């Protein structure tokens, strides 16, 4: 019961944000790049969330900002999950030297300090959105790869995969027909997790002033708010709270979706798997952001 309810809430919020992003020009009361009010104006009927340090309408900024955050979130998550899943499946299934090399590669990436790498790549590649997506995507696929691989390890031992191989199915066929469907819930969960991580990262980078300040994003709003000491003034109520809540809302709705997906898929899966199926795997099933496969 509660899974589907959460799922519905999550889906509804996400749709709300997507609509806001797509129809931003229509929904936003003002053009966020124009100065339509006094700097630091408090909320009023004309400006529901007041104005920022140069008099741009904060509500319009919020609405337009959803575009960047959602695109970064979704596109990066796709990139990272596809890359992570492929590496995970291939190395988990083939094992042997391929597995060794890929996993050591993953270890190296996991050991790289994240933020400095972002700064260096941002400085080196320039700060437009595509670079941001590439940079974040190429760095966070390592974790999903590791987790998906661990799942593939146990799925690989299961009865029907062995049977398929025994009947002469090629590796590619087995991977796509047998292994992939079994790990879709985990892959979906990893998609949710990487979406969360990339939205959070984009916001942190913008907050540290390391991404393009003219690109309207929730992180950029927080950067200006912090730099212009909004936290100290009463402005924190309408300048700092909303962008943070927007980020949290998008991230949590992804998590709700992931949770609902995991719960529905899990229960369906549980009935198909015959009792004798080896249930246990000792690798890290990830949480609701990445439900375990039973």
């Amino acid at each position, binding site marked *: 019961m509660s899974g589907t309810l959460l799922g519905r809430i999550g889906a509804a919020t996400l749709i709300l944000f997507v609509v806001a992003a797509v129809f931003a020009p229509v929904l936003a009361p003002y053009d966020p790049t124009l100065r339509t009010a006094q700097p630091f104006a408090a909320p009023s009927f004309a400006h529901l969330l007041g104005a920022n340090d140069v008099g741009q309408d904060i509500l319009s900024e919020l609405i337009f900002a959803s575009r960047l955050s959602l695109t970064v979130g979704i596109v990066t998550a796709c990139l990272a999950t596809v890359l992570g899943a492929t590496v995970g499946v291939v190395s988990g299934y083939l094992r042997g030297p391929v597995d060794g090399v890929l996993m050591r590669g993953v270890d190296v990436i996991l050991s790289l300090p994240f933020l400095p790498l972002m700064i260096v790549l941002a400085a080196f590649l320039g700060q437009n959105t595509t670079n941001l997506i590439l940079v974040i995507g190429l760095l966070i696929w390592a974790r999903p790869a590791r987790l998906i691989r661990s799942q593939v390890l146990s799925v690989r031992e299961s009865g029907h995969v062995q049977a398929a191989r025994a009947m002469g199915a090629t590796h590619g066929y087995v991977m796509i027909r047998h292994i992939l469907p079994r790990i879709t819930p985990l892959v979906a969960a990893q998609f949710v997790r990487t979406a969360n991580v990339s939205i959070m990262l984009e916001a942190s980078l913008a907050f540290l002033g390391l991404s393009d300040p003219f690109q309207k994003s929730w992180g950029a709003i927080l950067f200006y708010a912090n730099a212009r000491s909004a936290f100290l003034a009463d402005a924190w109520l309408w300048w700092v709270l909303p962008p943070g809540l927007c980020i949290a809302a998008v991230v949590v709705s992804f998590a709700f979706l992931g949770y609902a997906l995991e719960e529905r898929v899990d229960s369906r899966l549980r009935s198909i798997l015959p*009792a*004798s199926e080896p*249930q*246990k795997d000792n690798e890290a099933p990830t949480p609701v952001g990445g439900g375990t496969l039973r």
Partner: protein
Amino acid sequence: MSTLLEVRGLSTVYHTSEGPVRAVDGVDLTVGRGEILGVVGESGSGKTTLVMSLMRLVKPPGRILKGSEMLLDGEDLFRLPRSAMPARRGRDLALIPQSAMHALNPVIPVDRQVAEAITAHGEARSKAALRTARDRLREVGISPERCHAYPHELSGGMRQRCVIAMAVANEPKLVIADEPVSGLDVVVQARILRLISELRESRGLSMILVSHDLTTVAKICDRIMVMYAGRIVEAGETRTVFEKPLHPYTRALVEAIPQVRGPRQTLRAIPGGPPDLNHLPPGCNFQPRCPAAFADCKVVDPSLEEAEPGKKVACLLYHEDERKLEA
């Protein structure tokens, strides 16, 4: 022999998304002291739900309906509050769960798991409990050197023995075994069944043995009840049920057993599959698959009545009074 357990009108309902499902529907049964009662039925007939209900371990969305009674030594366990049940489980009634192969915690040595059953009831402190545990394990055939192994280091049969040792550790009045030997090869099955009957002799254990395999039940059970779609359709002495099965379903089950000796016969299976508990057929639950079904069967839902001394059956063939249409 005096009765140890009397169950009356036990019904357990699962609230699924498609509506309530009566997995166990008004079951009555009795178990005498030192008696082994066999419960037989296809998978999906409600056997495991029956076992879980007797242990009061039914997990939501399942619920035991009010009005079900379970008198153990005269005390109705269903009246007890939930919090009082742990004290009874393992001491008064014990369970050998289904797929005992996975019933042991993989990360704890077996002797400590058995000892835990003992200390749970405050009988002894951990050192003493460990010693008793090792004795119990030796009794069921696990040698002392093997008893502090981890479950995955033991064979299926040995794991089954550990579970049995665990169940009987506190000398329970009643042991309920759910498919104790299914999944084991025939030789090991025989050994486990012999172990169970030895324990019955040495301990005077009364037992309910639930299985889908008639031959297992036939070997060691005193009385047999046949379960179909959550109901008891036939009950009686093991020998009489086998020699003269009354209910068509029982007859089909008995005839389905391949005879190793004697003339070759073509095996006959029962057409169709277990009914969908959400949409039970009208009248008798078995009538769609019953070779002897006739008009009334579609209307009347027969109740379990005495057909011969010591023999009950729920089928219109034997209860003229319940027939409606003919008169």
